[in-house]
């Protein structure tokens, strides 16, 4: 991953490499010269490992000359950063107003029933994490979702069920 990719990659990958301190250090070293490098670094770590492991906090803090509390504070502030691995698939259903007007809440209930979990949870087999997202900018083709980083619009209960059933184990 070159620097340009690293600082602008949004973390949509749900599966990552195993934690490896040398690899993490390599990622941090590559980006840390940027002004305001904390978010780009955290995005890159999550892109690599699928989440921001506890071990990364001290490492980032030391490299950026910040306190561990500072780094932890950033990770916990932003909804995107995960402190634990997600399921093998991540389904983000839009819960904002435009999707609500097209039955978004009913779709969320349908997905919860189908997966047997609540919003924000992961299935026991680790297959799917279901999360709300507040607006994908697909408000004129609502309701919408992001499935493993891929966007889908004009959803209804049938297409949501098909979509969930199609996610590999």
């Amino acid at each position, binding site marked *: 991953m070159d620097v*340009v990719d690293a*600082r*602008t*990659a*949004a*973390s*949509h990958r749900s599966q990552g490499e195993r934690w490896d301190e040398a690899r993490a250090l390599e990622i941090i070293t590559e980006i840390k010269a*940027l*002004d*305001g*490098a*904390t*978010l*780009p670094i*955290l*995005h890159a770590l999550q892109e690599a490992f699928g989440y921001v492991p506890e071990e990364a906090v001290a490492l980032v803090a030391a490299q*950026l000359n910040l306190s561990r509390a*500072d780094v932890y*504070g*950033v990770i916990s*502030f*932003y*909804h*995107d*950063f995960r402190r634990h691995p997600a399921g093998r698939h991540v389904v983000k259903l839009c819960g*904002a*107003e*435009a*999707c*609500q*007007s*097209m039955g978004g809440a009913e779709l969320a209930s349908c997905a919860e029933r189908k997966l047997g979990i609540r919003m924000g949870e992961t299935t026991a087999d680790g297959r799917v994490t279901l999360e709300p*997202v*507040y*607006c*994908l*900018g*697909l*408000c*004129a*083709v*609502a309701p*919408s979702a*992001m499935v493993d*980083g891929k*966007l*889908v*619009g*004009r959803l209804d209960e049938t297409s949501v069920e098909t979509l969930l059933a199609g996610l590999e184990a």
Partner: protein
Amino acid sequence: MTVQIFLSRDAASVAVGADDVAAVLAREAERRGIAIELIRTGSRGLCWLEPLVEVATPAGRVAYGPVSAADVASLLDSIAGSGDHPLRQGLTAEIPWLKRQTRFTFARCGVIDPRSIDDYRSHGGLVGLEAALSIGPEAVLDRVVQSGLRGRGGAGFPTGIKWKTVAQAAGPQKYIVCNADEGDSGTFADRMLMEGDPFLLIEGMAIAGIAVGATRGFIYIRSEYPHAIAALNAATASARRAGVLGQSVAGSKYAFDLEVRVGAGAYVCGEETALLESLEGRRGQVRAKPPLPAHRGLFGAPTVINNMLSLAAIPFIIAEGPKAYADVGFGRSRGTMPIQIAGNVKHGGLFEAAFGLTLGEIVDDIGGGTLSGRPVRAVQVGGPLGAYFPRQLFDTPFDYEAFAARDGLIGHGGVVVFDDRVDMAAQARFALEFCAIESCGKCTPCRIGSTRGVETVDRIRGRHDVTANVALLQDLCQTMKLGSLCALGGFTPYPVMSALKYFPEDFGVAAVHSDAAE
């Protein structure tokens, strides 16, 4: 003969199957021995017709939509034959929904290949930058002031005044920051433009840099917009190669370069000072003003922070002159606004028009009413912090002051339509819940008030001591409105109070005296 076919790569088009259509087009054309050149553009903004396929003809582009992968075979047969097809919409330029618009900012969106700077240039791109270089910073500032352009993020602050403040501020390093953290539900203009005409934003930022003496820029894009991030990364690299960005902007003595940065799912980072905190690598917590970002912004340096649409309006203003821009509009709202029509609406999409259309024209006439076919009950204008307007306010003109006079706001131009099945007490609850989820936590009215508000609405919906709890909710909203540090806590009362005022029956009360909140 090769047939030119245009198909959008906009996220909304892709979300409803444009990539599948592209794949089948290539396969079926080859099978039929038809030579096609498929050009992936941005979206025209006629979202209900997406995926929209356009075919070049001597008379102009002919549109077909909405095209599914299953329609491609018959579409290719018709292209090879008479051109007739059930999905044919006629010449794209003659589609009334498009023809009625005044496209200053979105003139090229859906027309050009957003990955080609040559295509951008051959469609009038970079004329504004060249003009800016020839007239110089002072004249650029004057033109922006004269255009009457106001911040398109929602606050409506005059852009030219902001730029002049930064130009006059002393500092070895100044910055241009583009706020592309378009978090409001019902808005997608930034996303569409970044995906469909990314060089326009780069040109606007370069002009801003020249005008105020800034050599570095940042575009802060939300992570929910992966296609826009990719488009801007590609465009920035391409602009650098073409010499538009770099040590010598378009061969001039001015240097300007920019970086794309990605948010991390915090709505409050759309607030300018929270965005600056986030860019600096911290929690996106709102800063108290003063100091203004124009004096002490990013990394403590003088900073122009503008909404994406404000920056994207600049090349037209410089190229065509401020009068051409200011000649259209309504009252103090000059120029055009890309109105985003969304939610439960028949003809949803992006409609760029001069300010002054009434809400009724937007919803009934342009939007065509609800997609469900049921009566329109409420329309939320301006995102999650915007008021819900009932039909009796449909005569409100789309204008900053007119909406403010009716306790609403136009915000970033999003219009979300709800039919008669909406429960307005539930919408009021959501507004407060969203504020609780997204509050940065810095000020008490927003951090605590939002949660107490959810609890109070729950008691009202449970019909516990309704009169007293409605009075409590009004009082709480008043505190949040007057006591919050930024628009998140300060404007969350708009959807709540408007729901209560115009739809009291959903709260189990006959009518609500709104004086307390005014």
